[in-house]
Every structure is written in structure tokens, then in C-alpha cells.
């Protein structure tokens, strides 16, 4: 079976080049340079139908950028993104449309992700009508049905977003995604802004929907607990690159990459009392000028000279585990 979504060597670079005035200034000896942010750098992985892939990483490491490319609001600068085996470039109009509709997104901020000037019915039903999934006259019932699925009564249809609590809003966002009958839902920090008890409700809802419709999720989060709970496979990102990917059991029980290990060691857990916190020193470097070699080496306690020189690639080790660490694989040849 071909994967639903497959990413091969996807990169995204944001370039801001100097404008005319700055170029003239350069002639006069100033130094305005092009800035390049490599937000995502050669990322490859697949998402199979019905699979939940968790994507974990620090702030600014490129998770959202990756998510935006997957849903198609941004084009990758290089690499191939294939949907149901067809690469983006080769898609026909219809296939492209299908991809656009079949991948939907749920956002972090439940306040900003709903148009404050639209009623729930329109928020949820608008796109389905426009794309001809339903007729305008069917919208009411269609939306009512969706709202029921996400655990809201149909009576909320005429309200505006501000009349809901955060958890309810997130459900509306989910209903909106469901309305296009997606196959893959990208959840970009979809539960981070919610209270614990509400988080649990929403997580449960994700699970339920997955069982009911067979969705696949790309579940972006920095909450390791939630990822561990919901994901089948987990991908760890660091400064634009994947550093480790594997099944949830593998990664959480037996992390290979030093970064993953540090993450897990430091995550507070309910069962760790009087924990002695010993942090990874330093902070994630700026993607504007990433360090040479392995991006993690400045914070890595085990870093060697090789780490400072060579960029490790994501490779599978003897036991088939995929990591990007020179310590794990030895220097590449």
C-alpha cells in the first residue's frame, strides 16, 4: 500500500533579499545581505492511512512550517511532496483539488483560528458548499451533523465564536476540518492552549474520530505526554531537520538521539516527585546561522570533533531505528 502522504527531502527556505535602496547602499560600502532562514531542511517521512505521526521539537524548529507545506498553503522550496503516491508537480487539477481537500488543519490558538465575524454554521459549512461537496440548502443539516460528531449541539449553529469557551472553539475548528471529509489532519499544537481537563476531552475526540473515520494525523506538539498518548510513530525535529523517527514505543522507551534523550529526561511527569532538574544547557540556535556540523552539538554533552564538522543524516541503524547522529552511526563516508 502506498503511503497517504510521503515527504522526500522537503526543505523550506525563507529568503529576504536587499531592496533597491539597500543595494545602492551596498555600492557605497554598506553591507546589506540576503538573509536565509532554512526553516525546514531535507525532511523525509511518510504518513500511512489511519496513522498518527507525532512531531515534536522546540519552538522555532520548523514544525509549523512543515505543517503548512503538508496542507498546501505553502509550497516547499525543494523536495517532493506526494499525496497518494502522486507528486505535487505531477498532479492533475482534480488530483490537486482532492489533495487540498483531503488534508486539513487544526490550529493552536482557538481564538484566532475562527473568523470572529462569522456564525458557526458558515465557518463550518462554507468550504463544503464552495467545493460542491454539498448544496447550499443542505448546509444546515450537514453542519448540524458535524457539530454533533464533535460533541456540540446543533443549536450552537447561529452563534459567533466569541460565545464559546476555548475547548468548544477547538471543536468547531475540528468540525470545520471534518467538513471537507479529509484523510489527513494536521494538528498544529492543537491542544497546547487548553486547560488540562479540556485537553483530555479534545484528545479523546481525536481518538474517537480516528476510529470512526480512519483519519491519519500529523500531530505537532511539544507536550511529550500528549504525543506519547496519541501517536503511533514519533518524529523528533531539531533546527529544521529530523533527528529521530520511530514508533512511539521505541522512541519513548529507548530514545537514541541525545536530544531525544534529554527531552525525555527533563519532561516533568506526574510520577516524578522532587525531581532534580538538570537542563540541557543553551538554547536552540538561530536558523539564520546554524552551527556547522550537527546542529545539536553545542548543547550535546557527548559531542565529538566529528559532530562539529559533519552534518549527520537520518539513517537507519543496525536495529532499523532511524536517527541522525554520528555517535550512533559513526562518521558517514
Amino acid at each position, binding site marked *: 500500500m502506498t503511503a497517504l502522504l510521503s515527504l522526500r527531502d522537503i526543505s523550506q527556505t525563507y529568503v529576504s533579499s536587499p531592496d533597491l535602496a539597500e543595494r545602492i547602499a551596498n555600492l557605497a560600502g554598506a553591507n546589506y545581505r540576503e538573509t536565509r532562514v532554512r526553516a525546514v531542511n531535507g525532511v523525509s517521512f511518510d504518513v500511512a492511512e489511519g496513522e498518527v505521526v507525532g512531531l515534536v521539537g522546540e519552538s522555532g524548529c520548523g514544525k509549523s512550517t512543515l505543517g503548512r507545506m503538508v496542507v498546501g498553503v505553502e509550497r516547499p522550496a525543494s523536495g517532493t511532496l506526494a499525496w497518494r503516491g502522486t507528486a505535487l508537480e505531477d498532479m492533475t487539477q482534480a488530483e490537486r483539488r482532492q489533495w487540498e481537500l483531503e488534508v*486539513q488543519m487544526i490550529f493552536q490558538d482557538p481564538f484566532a483560528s475562527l473568523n470572529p*465575524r462569522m456564525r458557526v454554521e458558515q465557518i463550518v459549512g462554507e468550504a463544503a458548499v464552495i467545493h460542491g461537496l454539498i448544496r447550499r440548502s443542505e448546509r444546515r443539516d450537514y453542519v448540524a451533523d458535524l457539530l454533533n460528531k464533535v460533541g456540540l449541539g446543533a443549536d450552537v449553529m447561529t452563534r459567533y465564536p466569541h460565545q*464559546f469557551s476555548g475547548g468548544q472553539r477547538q471543536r468547531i475548528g475540528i468540525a470545520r476540518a471534518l467538513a471537507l471529509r479529509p484523510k489527513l489532519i494536521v494538528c498544529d499544537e492543537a491542544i497546547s492552549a487548553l486547560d488540562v481537563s479540556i485537553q483530555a476531552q479534545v484528545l479523546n475526540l481525536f481518538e474517537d474520530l480516528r476510529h470512526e473515520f480512519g483519519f491519519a494525523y500529523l500531530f505537532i506538539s511539544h507536550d511529550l505526554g500528549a504525543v506519547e498518548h496519541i501517536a503511533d510513530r514519533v518524529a523528533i525535529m531539531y533546527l529544521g531537520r529530523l533527528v529521530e523517527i520511530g514508533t512511539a514505543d521505541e522512541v519513548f522507551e529507548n530514545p537514541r538521539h541525545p536530544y531525544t534523550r534529554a527531552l525525555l529526561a527533563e519532561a516533568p511527569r506526574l510520577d516524578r516527585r522532587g525531581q532534580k532538574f538538570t537542563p540541557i544547557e543553551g538554547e536552540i540556535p538561530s536558523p539564520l546561522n546554524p552551527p556547522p556540523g550537527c546542529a545539536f552539538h553545542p548543547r550535546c554533552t557527548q559531542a565529538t570533533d566529528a559532530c562539529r564538522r559533519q552534518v549527520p543524516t537520518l539513517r537507519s541503524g543496525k536495529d532499523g531505528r532511524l536517527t541522525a547522529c554520528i555517535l550512533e552511526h559513526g562518521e558517514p563516508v
Partner: protein
Amino acid sequence: MSVAVDTPFRRFASDFVASPLAVIAAVGLVLIALMALFAGVVAPQNPYDLAQIDILDGSLEPGSEGFTGFRYWLGTDEQGRDMLSAMIYGLRISLFVSFVAVTSAVLVGMALGLLAAWRGGWIEGVIMRTVDIQLSFPALLVALLLLAALGKGVDKVIIALILVQWAYFARTVRAAALVEIKKDYVMAARAAALPEWRILFGHVLPNVMPPVLVIATVQVANAIAIEASLSFLGVGVPITEPSLGLLIANGFDYLLSGRYWISFYPGVALLVTLVCINMVGDHVRDILNPRMQR
């Protein structure tokens, strides 16, 4: 966070009525607008129909009776024109000029501002540079030069005001739209592959309207004031269609003469109108600013 069942409009309305002063101003404004709109019906005479006025009734004091038995409640000017009627018609012209100018400026500015925010690139560059240029130039001066070049006339004043004001709106709309466009609901709309025009006009536009409306109210007041100043400098509306501003400017010649009413009442009318507009605008701004809500 209350989950009361009400609409944004109802909330707005209830917030609005909480300030009695603003309500008074709003009511005053509505009355003024109605008076201006139905000037032909409300005003005792048509001061610009030369057949209706008589120079024999010139410069009468408020409350005096003309030789045809007509009573001039606010007196007459030297042409024998009923000041009350002149004021109402002047109000009409002032409001008409400012309203048409601001509405057009809003439309132009909004379209260009949205375009700039959405498209970016060189389109944004061109539009925003033009806005900068426009804004770095004082409104009054632009209007003054324009009118010197175009000559007098209500239509020309309107053109001058549009030219002077569109940039404010373009800038505001672009700034607001840039914020809105970054919000996730726009991303959601794009993820749902909605057509661009629909995102722009259905989603972004309604959300940039509130600041635009607030500025618009202030700009209406501003337009009235600019127009008055232009008339004072002698390049505003023609004397045959005097706005309130022109009435005041003309009447200033009479201030020291004891015939205060020729300038005084239009002045009061202008002041009341502008204060009402500004008060309503201020209050709306306060309500719409979530940070001002406690």
C-alpha cells in the same frame, strides 16, 4: 468568560448606551443628519433660490419679522437670507462634502490597502510608497494647491479631500489586514482551498472594518474642518453653495460689527456637529478596543 447568548451587535449596542454622553451625541448626530438630508423640507426657505430672498430683509436681527411677514428666527445676512435656512443648507453641504469624500476615500483606500497587504511585493511597494508620500504632506496644503489648480467647486473640494484622505485608510487597512492575514482563520480558509477573492472579501475585509469605521468617523469631522479652513482661505466651496465653514468665514467679517448672528450660529452648528461626531467616534473606538474594556 461569559457565554451569554448575544450577538456582537447587541453587545456593541449595550456597551454604547452605557455612556449617556455618547448617546446624546449620537442622537444629536442623527438629528443633524436628518435635518441636512431633508433640508428642503425642514428649512423655512430655500436660501439659494434668489426668488425667495429679498435684500430688503437684509441684516435683520434674530427673531425679527421681514416685510413680507416672514419671521427670521436666527436673523438674516446682508442679502436678506434666513440664517436658519442658510445654516441647514450649509450643514447639508458640509456633511455631503465630507461624507462623500470620506466614503470614496474609504473605498479607494480600502481596496488599495487590502491589495497591498494581500499581494505584497512590488504592488505593495508602489502603493505604500505613494501612501507615505501622501501622508508626509499636510492635508490642508495638498487641498489648497489642488483647489488652486482646479478652481472652486463642491466637486473639486470632494476630489481634494479624497486625495488627501485615502492614504490614511490605505495605511490603516493594510496594517490591520496584515495582522488579520497572519491569523489562523485565514490560514484555515486557505487550507480549505477557498478562492482568493472569497478569503479577501469574505474573511479579511469584515475584520478590518472596525478600525476603518472608527477612523472614518474622525475623518468625517476632519473633512468638515478642512473644508471650513479651505473656505476660510478662499479656495473652498463657491459662495453660491456655502458650507457651514464658508458661512462662518464670511460671517467673521461681521463679528466686530455687532451682527454676531451671521457667524455665531453657523459656528455653533459646526461646533456641535463636530463635537457630536468626534464623541461618537471616540466612544466607538473605546468600545471596540478590547484593551479598554475592563
